[in-house]
C-alpha cells in the first residue's frame, strides 16, 4: 500500500530574477513499511524535499498525498492536526523542550488527542523499552546524553502511532556508537512495528540501514537503490560507489 506519493514537486525560492529552483520536479512513492533514505550532496535539496513532504514547508508546484490526503488542500489548522496525528518527526538537534522531563516530552504529541491515559502509558512503556530509555524518564533533557536525547525524540515521534516518520539527519549530532545504536533501534522499529520511515542523511553508514536509498542531485532524483537481500555491508559498499559516481566535490561530511 502506498503511504506517500509525490508528483512533479517543485520548490522555487525567491522571485523572478532571483528565483532559485531547489526542487525541479521530483516524483516519488513510498510504500507502507519502507525505510527510505534520501542522500545527496549539500545543496541538492534533501532537507527541502523532506520539509515539503512533511508539510512544514509548501511546494511551489506539484501534488503530495499522504495516506490519501492531499496536503495542498488542507488549511493551516488541518495541516497541524494532520501532522500531529499522522506524522512523526526526528530532528538533527533533537528539538526537545528543555523545561519538560523526558517522559513529558515523549507524551507531548498526545496532549490534545483523545488517546486515554492508560493507552498512552502502555505505548510509552513499549517504546521506552524498545529504545532503552526507561531509566531516564524523569530526567530533564540537559541531564541526559545526546544519544538518549535522540532516542527520546524518536519515542516522541512514534508515540502517536504515525503513518510515517520523517527524520532529518537524526545521527548528525551523535558520536558513531550512539548513531549506530539509534539506527539499529529505528531499523528494529521499522521491521517489528511496520513503521514507515523517511530519513535524510549524508552518512553512508546511516543510509545502509535503509531498505531503499534515493540519491538527489541538483533538485532531481538521480538514482535509487534497493537493499533487497543484500547484507548491510554490501549495501554500504554500493552506496559508497554511487556516491563517488555522483562526484566527491562539495560533499558535506
Amino acid at each position, binding site marked *: 500500500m502506498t503511504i506517500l506519493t509525490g508528483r512533479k514537486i517543485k520548490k522555487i525560492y525567491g522571485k523572478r530574477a532571483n528565483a532559485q529552483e531547489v526542487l525541479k520536479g521530483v516524483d516519488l512513492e513510498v510504500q507502507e513499511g519502507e525505510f527510505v533514505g534520501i542522500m545527496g550532496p549539500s545543496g541538492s535539496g534533501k532537507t527541502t524535499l523532506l520539509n515539503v513532504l512533511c508539510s512544514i514547508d509548501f511546494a511551489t508546484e506539484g501534488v503530495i498525498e499522504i495516506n490519501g490526503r492531499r496536503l495542498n488542500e488542507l488549511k493551516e489548522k488541518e495541516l*497541524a492536526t494532520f501532522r500531529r496525528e499522522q506524522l512523526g518527526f526526528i530532528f538533527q538537534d533533537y528539538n526537545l523542550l528543555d523545561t519538560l522531563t523526558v517522559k513529558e516530552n515523549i507524551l507531548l504529541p498526545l496532549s490534545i488527542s483523545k488517546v486515554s491515559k492508560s493507552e498512552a502509558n502502555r505505548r510509552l512503556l513499549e517504546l521506552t523499552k524498545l529504545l532503552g530509555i526507561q531509566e531516564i524518564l524523569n530526567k530533564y533533557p540537559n541531564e541526559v546524553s545526546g544519544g538518549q536525547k535522540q532516542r527520546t525524540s524518536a519515542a516522541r515521534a512514534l508515540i502517536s502511532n504515525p503513518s510515517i516518520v520523517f527524520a532529518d539527519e537524526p545521527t548528525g549530532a551523535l558520536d558513531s556508537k550512539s548513531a549506530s545504536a539509534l539506527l539499529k533501534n529505528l531499523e528494529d522499529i521499522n521491521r517489528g512495528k511496520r513503521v514507515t520511515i523517511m530519513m535524510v542523511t549524508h552518512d553512508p553508514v546511516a543510509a545502509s540501514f535503509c531498505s531503499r536509498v534515493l540519491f538527489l542531485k541538483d533538485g532531481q532524483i538521480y538514482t535509487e537503490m534497493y537493499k533487497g537481500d543484500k547484507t548491510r555491508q554490501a549495501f554500504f559498499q554500493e552506496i559508497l560507489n554511487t556516491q563517488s559516481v555522483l562526484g566527491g566535490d562539495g560533499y558535506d561530511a
Partner: protein
Amino acid sequence: MTLSSLVLRSMAKNIKHYFLYFFALIFSVTLYFSFITLQYNPTVLLESTGMKPAAGFKTASVLIIFIVVFFVLYANHLFMKRRSKEIGLYQLIGMSKPLIIRLLGLENIILWALAAGIGVGLGFLSSRLFALILMRLLEQQVVVSLTFSTQALKQSLLLCAGLLLIVLVQSILKIRRVSLLSLFNASKQADERVKRFSGFGMVMGFIGLVAIGYGYYVSTQLFNLENATVNTLFIRMIVILAATIGGTFFVFRFSVSFVLNLVRMRKKGHLSITDVLALTPIMHRMKGNAKSLTLITVLTAVALTVLSLSYIAYYSSASSAQQSVPHDYMLMNGHGVEFMDMLEENNIAFKSVTFPIIRANVDIANLLSGSLAESGMLNTDAETDIISLSTYKQIHEDFTLQEGEGVIVNHGGLLAEMLPMKSNRPATVKTDVWQESIKIVSISDESVLSTDNMSAVVIVTDAMYDRIEASTDQSKTRWNEQIGINLLNKKEDLNRAEVLYVESGADAVPFNTNAEGKVYYKENMSQEQSRQFNIESMGVIIFVTAFLGLAFLLATGSILYFKQMSEAEDELESYTTLRKIGFSTSDLMKGIYVKQLFSFGVPLLIGLAHSFFAVKSGWLLFGTELATPLMITMGIYIALYSVFALLTIRYYKGIIRASL
C-alpha cells in the same frame, strides 16, 4: 557603510523593541515638563489657597526622576542583554570597544534627543490640560493662561542629559567588563533554569505564604491599643513591611514553583499543551524572575495604596464635612441667630433644630474590652456632651429609651477604630453630687453634634437629663446649645445662603475673653465651607498622586512587557518544535493566554492584596468612605495594566506565527 548609517539601520530594525521604551521615555519627559511648568505658573499658584501646589509638584517631579532613573537603568540592562550577540558580532568583525561604545552612544543620543523634543512639545500642550484638570479637581473656575516656561525646558533637558549619561555609563561598564565569548552566550546565561525542585524550596515556599498572611494579620491590628506601648505602632509597621515584602519574594522565588510543581506531579507526565507553554516555563524561570517580580509587585502595591488613600481622602470630602458639621449650618451658643432671620428675609426655606447640651463625666471603662481599660493609658472617665432624648427625637421621631438606658452617638472614624466599644454594657454617669450606672443600648457613628475633637455624645432620658443638669455645675460648659440648620432646597439656595452665613458673622464664634477684654474667636465652618476646604487640600494631592501612579504603572507595565518579550524570543525554539510536530497557532496561543494571565495577573493580584490591607489599616486617617473610592482606583489601575498584557499577547502572537 558609515557609523551613522549603521546606527540608523539598526535602530530602524529594532524599532519594534524600542517603541514601548521610547513611549515610556516620552511620557516621563512630558510629565516632568508639565509638572515643572505648573510649578512655576503664577495662575496656579494664586488660585489654590488651601495648599501650596508648587510644593506638591516639586515633590512629584523629584519622584518622577526616581522612577525614570530606575526604569531606564532596568530597561537598558535588558536591552544590552538582548543585543549582546549583535555587539559580539561587531567585535568579531574587528570593531574596537571604543567604537562600539560610540555606536551605542550615538544611538542613545538620537533616542533621547527625540524623546526630549517630543516630550517637551507634548508637555507644553498637556500642561494646559493638566492645569484644567487640577482646577476642575479644586472646583475652581478660572482661566489658566500658560506660557512656555524656559525654566521647565532647562530642567527637562537637564534630566534627559543626566539620564543619557547614566545609560551610557551603564553600557560602557557592561561592554568593557565582558569577554567576546560571554557576549555570545549572554542571552543563554539566564537559562540555567532547568533544575529539580527540592524539599527545601517547598518549605521556603510555605514560609513565604505564612509570612504574607502574618503581615496581613498584623496590619489589621495596627491601631489596636491592647498591650500597646509607645513603640508598638512603629514596630508593627516594620513587621508588616518586612513580612509582606519578604513574603512576596519568597512566594515568587519558592511558593509559585512549589505549587506549580505539585500540580505538575499530579499529572504524572501527561501535560496538556497549556501546561507545556504556561506552567513549565513559569516554574523554571521563577528563580531568575523572582527579584524583578517582587519589585514590580511592591511598586504596584505602593502606587495603588497611595492612589487609593488620596482618592479616599478626596472622595470623602463631602462625607468628612458632614461628619464634622452634621447639618448645613451649626450655630453655637445662640451666636449668629440673625442668620436665620436673614434666611427668612431672603425667602430661603430651612428647618432648624435646637440642641441644648450639658456636660458631665461619663465613665466608659466597662464598654471597652478588658485589657484596654486596665492598661491605664486611657482616661476613660471624661467630661462628655449629653443631650436629652426629646432633643434627639427632633431628628429621629420614633426613637425611644427606657429609664436607666442611654445611647452613644458621634462615635466614628479613627476613634471608633482605636477604641472599639461594645453596647449592652453599663456606663457610669458622675455628677457633682451622685453617680449612677446607665445601660448603653446602642453605639453608633451617626454624627449629631459638632464636637471639638469628634468625641462621643451620650443621649439619656429626659428625667435623667434634668437630674444631671440640676446636680452639675454647667457654668464651664463651653457649648451649651447648638442649632442645626438644614436648607430645604439646598440645590437652589446654597450659594445665597453661604454668602449670608458669612455676612451674619456666624462663621466665627467668640469662645474666650482674656483679661484685657480681647475676644478670641473660633472658626465655625458651614458644611459647604468644610467640604471646600477638604477639596482644596486634597485636590492637589490626588492630582499629583494620580500622575505619579500613572508613571509607576507605565514603568512596571513596560518592564513586564520587556521581560515577556525576551522570554518569547528565548522560547522561540520551543514554539518552532511544537508547531512542527503538529500544534496549531491557536493551540499555542491558548497556553500563552494562561501564561500572560499568570505573568501579569499574579504580581497584580498580590499587589492588590497588599494595597488592600495597607489601605484597610490606615484609611480612617484619610477619609470616611472606603469601598467606592477603593474600587474605582483599583478598577482603573487594573484596566490600564491590562493594556500591557494585551500588548504582550500581541507580541507573542507575532512570534508564534513566524516561528515555523
